[in-house]
């Protein structure tokens, strides 16, 4: 029975690997049903007891003893004794701060005494590296590891959120989706990867490259390794030019089956939202700004009177029918008199989200399994028309040792994500809902009042009806991944692995736009803007990804010479297909479907892209007595992205290490009294980048094919005699010679531990330079008529360091640890075809993030000030009190930008740098008896940010002066007026391009976007063993925590925007503060 059972996963794996082997009567379905009957009670449970001492024979108090692969654990008492229940063939792990951990197999014994020696904390632990593992002590690359302790129990949807701040120079940032329920984060290792851009690393899950980090359930994760340097990443060749994140998921362990259940309930509240001005202040400021620009009132005296009456309560309605003769409409914008803070109105005060995770794991000596189930329910903060993200995860990892030289495994993963939010045709929201909300004037009515013909209802301008009932945007992604794997160990020292993975990401999106009607004062129904005609569209995408890996490792030790050699082959195929169809005019909005539309011109389109790569790779490791370490890696890579003569490249990497502490003199000189271990490392590697700055941009999968654009009739808007017709558009220019970007990284590092292993420090300095970086060939005259194609013509360089410090100790029976990470980088352009050195473009020697601007002198307070100041007419024709005076740096009597070149930039100078500096994380944990607590800070040490003139969130009225694109918040009270001559913001000009003259990039408004945020704090309590054993539960822990509890930032004064989303245009779905309660139970 057991033998037959264990064969089944092998066969599955074989099928999946593409082996066409006759399976006889054994079918996959049969196999699946059989799996359920695996006995999890193969072994008897016994009670083990014993004593733990150090090498001097002293009892050790508080040593943690854990049944390996389970969460069953205990600690030694005051005499060093312990007692624990375990399977008769389980393995016990003994760990203690400052001592080497030890694993002991029970083998049926009931009494086990253990001696722990003080020693290398974690140094013997295995670190997952590309295509294998390595002892940490022997690692020569810049590799950081994270255990699941840091990830566990955080109520985050995406793994990336949990990684923020945990690894030095692993930079996790908010994206444009901000705090939306389906938001993802940007991930980057070690800074710039392009001209001002930061690309993400390769994600490898259980040895399979190209995985999706966003759909993984953080609860399934065992460990994470982050590879930062090129020598270690070289094994992945051009797939990993900018680092690798290796994720290992949980596997079953031999022994009793364990069932574990975790849950968290979180109450979220939005944070960092600016407060809008009240309608009276808003109206008065608009009028003031309009007068400043030489125009009349935007809000008439009558409207202002009504606003005052409404604020004082004497007027009850927010708007009235427009009294203009013959007009049937409601007063709106500058003629209505409500008082609404739209951000406040549109976002809920709080929202409950929940997560549930259930896992089963166990196995026999030969077959092991882990099954994890996850459920995430994350409603968003929108008040009208819910937005909800949900995710369902299933992971099953099964492996079996078929015979002693052959192991087969099957790993399956499936996630389903759905996101459902209000839809308003895209055009009404402009795909930037936060902008639409904040540019709504507070005077706009939320409700229109009842008339003889119309009931009181939400106004059209409030957009509430559209959000509530204007149709839905529904997205779903199905993401199944299947990996079959065979591991052969035919002779001692040789391991060969073949695996094949098929993974696909199926996206389904539907958009339903309903026609929404408003009731006019007369009772007439009028469709809302942009909601007519109603429409429906469906889009589907299939992103198939196939990976085949075959590789072998041979390990040999001769005396103190240890050799390891790896060789392999990999190929990948991405095959993406998209379909899209839509039509106008639905028979009924109750059944949105393509089949229920009757529009005369449905739109249909598809697209298909393929990308194939293959490579051969090898690695050679040598170490002498674990003292002198050497690793050489190489990969020969080819891609479909280039024409055949530029297609293949070889990428080498070499690294070396020296464990100085193993030298005899270390002990002789007594250095070991302070430094317990000390390793120096160095590496150099070369990698290829074929993604041109954006791995997911399929548009550049065929960079050398000039193609004509094709536009369907339904996307055109010219009516010919026979209706709309298709059209084609002109191909751009291409460059057939483009090829790989070559990325070389030099890295020097040191790993040390000191003070009896209580302190550990790891430091790396690196220099990453990209040759042949793609940039435009040069600046061409505009008459070229199209953007010039990219060319391998630029070079860039990023330099930085990353550092991690850990301190672990105990005081009495309080164990505590502190872990700090710090990373920094700066990027430079070392070559760029900009002969004129126009500062509006990149040029050789430019530091990335450089901000050019004027130096601010201050405000003109009188026309006499203007007359005596340098001529600023190149910026704008007229200047007066309340306008900014810029400094005449070159003393030529006028303010300008010269030739706009580096040599002649007039009065511009470098006034800042937007590169985030000194990103850090700080994690502290403490446990005492059955209580545990942790705290986690994350932040950025310095970052210059200049809010561009278009940013209405910062300026209130943007440089265009547009009354429609302005957002006045309470901070904008502090502006220049004759009576407030030192106001922070300059004199405002509404409805006039004049406003931009004071918003030139300049020193006065440069912001420091540094921050430190209390990301997470939690307190847990674990029920004591004696209670648990009586109810048959292994572990029972309850905890409470808070996310995003507090933030400190110099930004606060003149903007109340969250510093984590400050750097873009700020108009981003708000982040949230969460208060959670949760539970972990293991049976």
């Amino acid at each position: 029975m057991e033998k037959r059972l264990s064969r089944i996963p092998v066969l599955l794996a074989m099928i999946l690997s593409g082996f066409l082997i006759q399976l006889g009567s054994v079918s996959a379905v049969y196999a699946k049903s059989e799996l359920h009957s695996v006995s999890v009670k193969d072994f008897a449970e016994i009670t083990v007891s014993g004593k733990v001492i150090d090498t001097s024979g002293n009892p050790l108090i508080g040593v943690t003893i854990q049944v390996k692969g389970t969460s069953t654990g205990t600690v030694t008492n005051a005499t060093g004794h312990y007692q624990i229940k375990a399977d008769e063939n389980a393995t016990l792990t003994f760990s203690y701060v400052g001592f080497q951990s030890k694993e002991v197999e029970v083998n049926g014994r009931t009494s086990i005494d253990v001696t722990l020696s003080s020693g290398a904390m974690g140094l013997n632990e295995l670190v997952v590296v590309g295509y294998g593992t390595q002892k940490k002590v022997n690692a020569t690359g810049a590799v950081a590891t994270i255990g699941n302790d840091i990830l566990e129990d955080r109520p985050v949807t995406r793994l990336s959120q949990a990684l923020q701040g945990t690894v030095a120079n692993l930079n996790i940032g908010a994206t444009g989706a901000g705090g939306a329920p389906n938001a993802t984060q940007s991930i980057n290792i070690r800074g710039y990867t392009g001209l001002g851009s930061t690309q993400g690393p390769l994600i490898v899950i259980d040895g399979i490259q190209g995985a999706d980090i966003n759909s993984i359930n953080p609860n399934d994760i065992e460990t994470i390794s982050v590879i930062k340097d090129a020598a270690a990443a070289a094994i992945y060749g051009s797939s990993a030019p900018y680092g690798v994140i290796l994720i290992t998921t949980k596997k079953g362990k031999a022994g009793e089956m364990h069932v574990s259940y975790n849950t968290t309930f979180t109450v979220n509240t939005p944070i960092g939202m600016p407060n809008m001005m009240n309608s009276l202040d808003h109206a008065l400021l608009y009028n003031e700004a309009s007068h400043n620009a030489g125009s009349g009132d935007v809000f008439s005296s009558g409207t202002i009177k009504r606003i005052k009456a409404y604020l004082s309560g004497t007027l009850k309605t927010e708007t009235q029918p427009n009294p203009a003769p013959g007009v049937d409409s409601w007063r709106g914008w500058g003629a209505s008199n409500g008082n609404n803070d739209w951000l406040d109105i549109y976002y809920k005060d709080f929202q409950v989200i929940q997560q549930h995770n259930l896992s089963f794991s166990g196995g026999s000596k030969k077959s092991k399994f882990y099954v994890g189930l996850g459920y995430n329910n994350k409603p968003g903060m929108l008040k009208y028309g819910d937005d909800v993200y949900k995710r369902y995860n299933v992971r099953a990892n099964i492996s079996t040792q078929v015979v002693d030289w052959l192991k087969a495994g099957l790993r399956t993963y499936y996630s389903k994500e759905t996101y459902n939010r209000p839809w308003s045709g895209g055009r009404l929201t402009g795909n930037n809902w936060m902008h639409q909300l904040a540019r709504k004037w507070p005077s706009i009515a939320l409700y229109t009042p009842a008339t003889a013909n119309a009931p009181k209802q939400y106004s059209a301008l409030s957009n509430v009806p559209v959000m509530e009932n204007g149709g839905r945007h529904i997205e779903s992604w199905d993401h199944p991944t299947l990996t079959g794997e065979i591991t052969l160990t035919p002779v001692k020292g040789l391991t060969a692995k073949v695996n094949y993975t098929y993974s696909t990401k199926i996206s389904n999106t539907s958009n339903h736009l309903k026609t929404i009607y408003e009731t006019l004062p007369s009772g007439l129904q009028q469709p809302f803007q942009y909601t007519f005609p109603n429409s429906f569209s469906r889009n589907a995408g299939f992103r198939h990804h196939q990976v085949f890996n075959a590789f072998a490792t041979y390990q040999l030790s001769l005396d103190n010479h240890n050799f390891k050699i790896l060789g392999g082959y990999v190929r990948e195929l991405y095959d993406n297909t998209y379909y899209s169809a839509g039509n106008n005019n639905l028979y009924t909005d109750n059944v949105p479907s393509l089949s229920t539309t009757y529009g005369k011109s449905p739109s249909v389109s598809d697209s298909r892209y393929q990308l194939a790569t293959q490579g051969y790779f090898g690695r050679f490791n040598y170490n002498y007595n674990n003292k002198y370490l050497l690793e050489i890696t190489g990969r020969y890579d080819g891609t479909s992205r280039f024409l055949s003569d530029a297609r293949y490249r070889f990428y080498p990497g070499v690294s070396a290490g020296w464990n100085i502490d193993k030298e005899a003199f270390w002990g002789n000189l007594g250095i070991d009294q302070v430094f317990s271990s000390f390793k120096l490392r160095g590496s150099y590697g070369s990698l290829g980048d074929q993604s041109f700055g954006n791995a997911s941009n399929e548009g550049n999968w065929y960079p050398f094919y000039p193609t004509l654009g094709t536009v369907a009739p339904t996307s055109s808007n010219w009516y010919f005699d026979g209706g709309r017709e298709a059209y084609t558009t002109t191909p751009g220019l291409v460059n057939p010679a483009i090829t790989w970007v070559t990325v070389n990284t030099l890295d020097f590092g040191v790993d040390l531990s000191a003070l009896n292993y209580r302190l550990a420090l790891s430091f790396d300095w690196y220099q990453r330079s990209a040759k042949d970086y793609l940039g435009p060939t040069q600046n061409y005259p505009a008459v070229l008529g199209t953007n010039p194609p990219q060319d391998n013509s630029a070079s860039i360089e990023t330099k930085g360091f990353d550092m991690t410090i850990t301190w672990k100790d105990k005081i009495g029976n309080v164990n505590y640890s502190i872990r700090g990470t710090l990373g920094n980088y700066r990027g430079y352009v070392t070559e760029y075809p900009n002969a004129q050195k126009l500062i509006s473009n990149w040029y050789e020697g430019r530091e990335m993030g450089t901000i050019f601007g004027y130096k601010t002198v201050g405000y003109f307070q009188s026309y006499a000030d203007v007359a005596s100041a340098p001529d600023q007419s190149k910026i704008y024709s007229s200047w007066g009190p309340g306008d900014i005076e810029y400094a005449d740096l070159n003393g030529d009597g006028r303010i300008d930008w010269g030739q706009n070149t580096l040599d002649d930039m007039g009065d511009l100078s470098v006034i800042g740098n937007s590169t985030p500096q000194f990103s850090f994380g700080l994690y502290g944990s403490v446990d005492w008896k059955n209580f545990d607590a942790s705290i986690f800070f994350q932040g950025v040490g310095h970052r210059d940010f200049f809010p561009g003139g278009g940013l209405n969130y910062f300026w209130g009225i943007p440089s265009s002066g547009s009354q429609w694109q302005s957002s006045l918040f309470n901070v904008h009270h502090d502006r220049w007026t004759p009576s407030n001559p030192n106001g922070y913001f300059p004199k405002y000009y509404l409805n006039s391009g004049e406003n931009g003259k004071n918003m030139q990039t300049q020193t006065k408004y440069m912001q420091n976007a540094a921050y430190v945020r209390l990301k997470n704090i939690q307190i847990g309590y674990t029920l004591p063993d004696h209670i648990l054993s009586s109810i048959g539960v292994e572990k029972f822990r309850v905890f409470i925590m808070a996310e995003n509890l507090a933030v400190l930032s110099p930004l606060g004064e003149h903007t109340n925007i969250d510093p984590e989303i400050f750097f873009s245009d700020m108009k981003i779905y708000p982040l949230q503060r969460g208060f959670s309660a949760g539970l972990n139970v293991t049976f």
Partner: protein
Amino acid sequence: MNNKIKLIISILCVVFVFSSCKKNFIDRAPMSNISDADYWKTPNDLRLYVNQFYNGLPSYRGYGTWGPYSLDASQGSDNMIHFEYNQFLNGESTLPASGGGWSYGDWEQIRSINYFLDHYKTIEGDQSEIRKYVGEAYFFKAWYYFEKLKSFGDLPWYSHALVLSDSTALQKPRLSRDLVVDSLMSILDLAIDYLPEKGGSGYENFRVYSELAALFESRIALYEGTWEKYHAGTPFGVQGKDGSKFLKKAVQAANIVISSGKFALDNVGEPEGYRKLFNRLDYSDSKEVMFWRKYDPADGVYTLWANYQRLGGGLGVTKSLVDAYLCKDGKPIAMSSDYKGDDSLKSVVANRDPRLIQTIQVNDGSHFINDTSEFVHPAWDGALEDKNATGYQLYKGLSLSLEQQTRGKGSQGLIYFRYAEALLNYAEAKAELGTITQADLDETINKLRDRVGMPHLVLGSIVHDTNWNFPNLTPIINEVRRERRVEFAAEGYRHDDIWRWAAAGKLIEGWKPKGAKRQQFLKIAKDAPEKNLIKDLYPVDGNGYIFPYKNNVVGQSGYNFNVNRDYLSPIPTNQLLLNKHLEQNPGW
């Protein structure tokens, strides 16, 4: 047994790895895009390619888009104004480092057409069909070059789509504007030749055709002819040129249209026939509208013009325009006893050229906001965009249909070219050449006057107007220009006319725009708050005329237009660095 399996599996592994190394595994070509190699085969390929240029014509759709009847205000002219003064007219333009209408994207259409001209020769098929699309390409090339000519004057001329290695072509100096227009004339001559005639073989509605190309040619020729004539001797002129060559070309081209006999004025003699020309949904059966754009709300392709225009759209017609209309006796207001003064809207339009009463709203019981409501007074209560700026609210072009005024349902046709332009171009060019005859007037301007029942313009008996804008020019030129201003009021011609006549110094510099008299509205106001509202909204000058910019910089000294600079846009400074042969425009 074991060893045997080991062997088999090992071999399988090896076989699998190497059999899968198909040579072409990493050869992947685009699967849902076409390249030049797959294209340029049949005349239909040409058709699909030139279709992009129709889509690229201005469409005035979407939020904040007022439509063509607001162009006189947005482009900057003395016919209409916005609540905010026009910064460009006030000399507030600045010199940009980049962008400014001279970027890669701004030259894209010309590149696209040249790309067509580089590729169409490989097509095989019906020659007349091929010629038709080549003619269309020339038409659009002239369209886009003309837009650039108006902004920048001299331009480099390109006949091929440029590639990176065309270093000489990329570094070309600008060609004198008259040579550019010579080229435009020659490609439009080809277009006239290649394109089907209206109603002829190969003709299709909504595609350009031979006579249309001729009308467009006359527009450009008249533009350049008058520009050269009136800017002569200034930095904007062309040395040694008086424009007569192009004026003759304008006559000849306009005559192609007129003499074809295929076109005529619509609604002649009909009550309100003039106004009814501008708010139709469909011009398919029009003899006058020569090229127009259609919309279809059922596809979501709609406009919002009527919705904006009904309440003034934040715009207003100026006193300057209103004063230009003759009285019914054919005499200017300064000379006619018919003129009833400006005290009320009703008196303003009394006894005037009927086109006036069909162009502005009057509270006379026969002007309407829409099908159910009459016009009572200018819109003065509401958001800025829902108000009228001068007291003279535009009526021409307004669709009264409630459906048209409903958001999402607007589909008024957009007129690009109408036959009246051929008549006016012909008359003006001949007047400028000094060769105009009474017969010419009867065939052109007097046809327009017949439509609205105005007395004919008689060459020998033109009444001297003390208010002529151009007292130094001949009476006939003054009257032809008046006729053009009146006939095309609010259609977006006026800005270009002022520019080509070099008349901004006379008409814009120092100009303080005015509107109607305010007192009449205070009388209408129902209560004190409404009176206050009117007073707030409409400041007045010493004579009681609404003076919208009274309280700002324009109110003090009038528009600060720079005649030595603002006739042409500057070339961005970056471009002058990239091409040392480019010279900056005068005054910049």
